């Protein structure tokens, strides 16, 4: 089912019981343009990343079985590499890809991205499925370290802070 968050609502995030995170957002652009922004390295490098993270390596072989690889640089010289394989490519409507962060194979995610167009606007609906609920929750708790090797340490810190103030 396609969610159409209203204009100005920004990103809508939900975590239903299970192992998935759902992300929905609308853009004031036809879906061909949005799809290009999600799949062309020259465009991705202009927007992808937040909180001081920028995409420095972006390689995409956009076909079923093709690989993708991103490297992002973050605050304090931090570097994070991640990539995977495209399982489905149906431009400009749908992408299914695996996503593995370097050194965090246990956290491999299956990412399904759907783009729907209506009256020149595009709804993006992303479903990220993790292997377990614990991994899903750790990603929600600490997005900037999503998949990084120290995720579990950080999760432990957060949990101990949260429950033993």
């Amino acid at each position, binding site marked *: 089912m396609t969610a159409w968050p209203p204009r100005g609502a920004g990103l809508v*995030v939900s975590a239903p019981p299970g192992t998935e995170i759902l*992300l929905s957002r609308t*853009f004031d652009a036809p879906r061909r343009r949005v799809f290009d922004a999600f799949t062309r390295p020259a465009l991705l490098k*202009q*927007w992808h990343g937040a909180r001081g993270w920028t995409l420095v390596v972006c390689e995409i072989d956009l076909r079923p079985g093709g690989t993708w690889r991103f490297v992002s640089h973050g605050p304090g010289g931090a570097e994070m590499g991640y990539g995977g394989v495209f399982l489905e490519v149906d431009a400009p409507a749908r992408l299914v890809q695996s996503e593995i962060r370097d050194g965090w194979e246990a956290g491999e995610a299956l990412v399904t991205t759907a783009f729907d167009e209506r009256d020149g606007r595009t709804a993006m609906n992303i479903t990220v499925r993790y292997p377990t609920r614990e991994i*899903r929750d750790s990603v929600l708790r600490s997005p900037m370290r999503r998949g990084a090797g120290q995720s579990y340490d950080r999760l432990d810190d957060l949990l101990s802070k*949260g429950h033993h103030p």
Partner: protein
Amino acid sequence: MDTSTLDTTFAALADPTRRAILTRLTQGDASVGELSAPFAMSQPAVSKHLRVLERAGLVSRGRDAQRRPCRLEARPLREALDWLADFRQYWEESYQRLDELLARLEEQEDS
């Protein structure tokens, strides 16, 4: 061992009786008997819901052996909502840059 997760929090909130119990507890502590009164439910049935809420860390029980009053513990709920809000804000920053890029691409196409 603490097994609190987003799922246990949200699963605990998924039931209308449990939400009603939490709503009642926002007005102050209450015994199982006091909580059972508004519901067409037996005390054991209400106790079962309370155990789910206790396991999720949303309710604690007092030490008074007779009444064992129930108390609302708001922190796990607040934490779960904070995590979602923080995660949302993290990615929203990126998508706002995408909004700007899409607008620039439209100008380039028009010119």
